[in-house]
């Protein structure tokens, strides 16, 4: 266990990077995903098509390939940025597609009576989305959204492949010197487990509070 104590500084810093990345990408993906879902049920055909194309692209291409594209291919198309922000943006874009899908299954569960009632009350499309449809969809989709957030946390590890120093990269570096993969990666795995557990418990709590009783 001394090997962990010796490199506690860099390890904790890397863990901090992981948590910050997960938080920023998580919030970003939630916001973006909600907008994408809204675009898909809007009356403008172009927006619907764009939202559809967006989700199809990011859902069908592996994250690692996307990261490689963003870090190595885009610069030759004129878009270049520092590594960590690029990774966070790609992660948020990627998970937003999954958020959009999760909220979409939530929309399926909103009764048609709700829509009829909101129109009868004279709400515009924007208002009915904002006050009636989306809130209920999100409440119904808490569990899938929790899954997406956990997957996002695990996916921050892929940023190591494009040079970001987060927990997995730090564990790799430690192992290069110490050559004890089972111990090092088990501990790293347990840390990820702990993070996911926190998210899972939080999701469960939120679900119990906002679940719609039918």
């Amino acid at each position, binding site marked *: 266990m001394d090997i962990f104590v010796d490199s506690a500084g860099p390890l904790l810093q890397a863990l901090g990077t992981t948590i910050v990345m997960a938080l920023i990408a998580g919030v970003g993906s939630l916001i973006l995903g909600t907008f994408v879902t809204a675009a*898909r*049920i809007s*009356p*403008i*055909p*172009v927006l619907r098509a*764009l939202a559809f194309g967006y989700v*199809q*692209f990011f*859902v*069908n*291409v*592996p*994250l*690692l*390939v996307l990261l*490689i*594209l963003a870090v*190595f*291919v885009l610069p*030759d*198309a*004129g878009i270049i940025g520092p590594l960590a922000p690029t990774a966070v943006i790609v992660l948020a874009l990627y998970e937003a597609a*999954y958020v959009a*899908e*999760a909220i*979409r*299954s939530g*929309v*399926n*569960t*909103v*009764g*048609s009576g*709700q*829509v009829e009632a909101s*129109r009868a009350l004279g709400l515009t*499309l924007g208002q009915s989305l904002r006050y009636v449809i989306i809130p209920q969809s999100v409440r*119904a*989709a808490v*569990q*899938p959204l929790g*899954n997406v957030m*956990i*997957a996002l946390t*695990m996916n921050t*590890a892929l940023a190591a492949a494009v040079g970001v120093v987060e927990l997995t990269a730090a564990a790799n570096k430690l192992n290069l010197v110490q050559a004890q*993969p*089972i111990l090092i*990666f*088990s501990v*790293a*795995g347990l840390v*990820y*487990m702990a993070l*996911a*557990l926190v998210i*899972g418990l939080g999701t469960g709590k939120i679900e119990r509070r906002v*679940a719609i009783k*039918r």
Partner: protein
Amino acid sequence: MSTTTKPSGARPAVSLYDEPGPRTRRNIRIWSVVTFVLLGAAIAAALVQFASHGQLDADKWAPFLQWSIWEYLLVGLWGTAQAAALVAVLGGIFGVILALGRLSNVRVIRWLSTGYIEIARTVPVLLLIYVMLFGLPQLGINFPLLWKLVIPLTIANAAAFAEIVRAGILGLPAGQAEAALSLGMSRGQATRYVVLPQAIRFASPSLVTQLVSLIKDTSLGYIVSFTELLYRGQVLSSFNHLLIQTFVVVTLIYLVFNGSLSTLASRLRTRPSTRTLADPGEPVGVPVTDPRPTTVA
């Protein structure tokens, strides 16, 4: 204004907004054109930049005209597909069992299912793969290569499938189960014939997404040295020194393969009619016939 009528056989659609009047339709058209133009300009700019860096040169793309290169990559894709199919079937079955277990009345079953789901959801798949690679062989258990990848993915994905199915079951109106029970069905029959089919249909967008996500997870197969698409792409790029071109091609292969799966699956599920808010994947409320301004008396 009102529910639009469709030819018999299609679902009744409930529209979220009034049928677009002339001014709205004009605005929609204007915005559509503007969006197209902006998008086109952005793509053109990117291509110009690309060309200026020499990435569109013919000789950089010429290697991809060789069938042997495509065969190399497609064999990798076949490996991906095999592993993913196994995990989907095994994980799906296991997932449904877990979801039912978690909703069971028997406390022990509920605890066991919940415990498994919570743990399997939070253990990184990478860690499970390492256990298969290092831990078990030390105990004398050495699985064939394919199973070293499939078993960890199944363990993790079964939990994900279970959660999705559970969300679908919980989202079903309680009246369905009550009606089934009042018809004299046992709980088991009610679950099997009424609740599960509808729940799975509700949750099918998420299920298909999970399937595609699982296909992408097979790229972790490189840890166990399993021949799959991403790894073969990396080997190819180190052989031909054409990183950009190789990964653009790999992206396209993934898009086509996974995209056709998603399309196939979504076509399968839109056939049965369900009476709820019309599937937002379809244009909501857009009338089938040419909308003419209706005069309201």
